[in-house]
């Protein structure tokens, strides 16, 4: 199937924080945008991700203050994607992993973020588009076959050896 690549659907403007940032900074950044996560970077390399869930589970529900380092609550087992990956390869990854956000990394540098929602929506539109094309092709094919089979009687006399009959 003709497929778009991850680069086309990724979010290029990722909220990032340095490794030294505090939890408070992460919380402020999270509440300002609706991406739902902050990527923690060291230089340009992503080393972890702090989601709203991390903040709720590890800080607010325990009644801790927000002075600690953000790197302490991040999820560091990142699954990153390549911008040149096709969407069906990306779909295989999201079907096997349980994450919702995937940093897009090229040459060790963070260049974007792709969410499960974006991939699923893009694939769903792609499937719909392909279905429409395929149906048009099928209808044309049916018309063609009908034409050939119905007119066969009148055509076979022009076929060498009488069509074998």
């Amino acid at each position: 199937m003709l497929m778009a690549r991850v680069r086309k659907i990724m979010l290029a403007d990722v909220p990032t924080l340095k490794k030294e940032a505090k939890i408070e900074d992460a919380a402020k950044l999270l509440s300002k945008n609706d991406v739902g996560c902050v990527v923690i970077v060291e230089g340009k390399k992503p080393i972890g991700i702090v989601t709203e869930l991390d903040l709720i589970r590890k800080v607010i529900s325990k009644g801790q203050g927000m002075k600690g380092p953000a790197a302490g609550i991040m999820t560091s087992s990142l699954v990153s994607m390549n911008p040149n990956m096709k969407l069906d390869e990306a779909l295989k990854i999201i079907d096997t992993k349980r994450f919702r956000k995937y940093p897009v990394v090229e040459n060790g540098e963070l260049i974007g973020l792709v969410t499960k929602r974006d991939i699923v929506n893009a694939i769903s539109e792609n499937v719909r588009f392909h279905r429409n094309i395929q149906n048009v092709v099928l209808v044309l094919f049916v018309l063609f076959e009908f034409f050939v089979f119905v007119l066969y009687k009148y055509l076979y006399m022009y076929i060498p050896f009488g069509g074998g009959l």
Partner: protein
Amino acid sequence: MIKVSNMMTKDVVTISRNSSLKEAAMLMSSKSVSSLVVMEKNRQIAVVSENDIIQGTISKKTKISDVMSKDFIVISPSTRFSEISRSLNDKKIKRFPVVENEKLVGLITETDLIEATRDFTRFHQIVQEVILAIFGLATAFFLFYFSPVGASIFS
């Protein structure tokens, strides 16, 4: 079509408007949900998301009633999937409490919609493959039937 009753989360976590933000956060992490429904006298009056709680904590609020939001749409189990996804995309509403006979029976969030879309896509691909296979078989049969070999067998 996908039914709302199949895709919704059935055990909705509810909270009262007088609870504290910490209680809400504890509920969210122990039940692993991303949104709570605020109930008052058996009626759903608001929803609270993870982001609401984070914003509330930053601005030093403590009660649910200070952070809860009214941007939700009550739906019934017979609501169509397309209507829900339209209000998700156009109105940016992400939470849909499901109410049947004036009783809260479920909640649909963005995650449920994504899962449903994923399953629907998979189903569509399978249906499309089956149509192609049937069509291919029919075409092969016709070609054989009208071929000289077929004609000598079938006549």
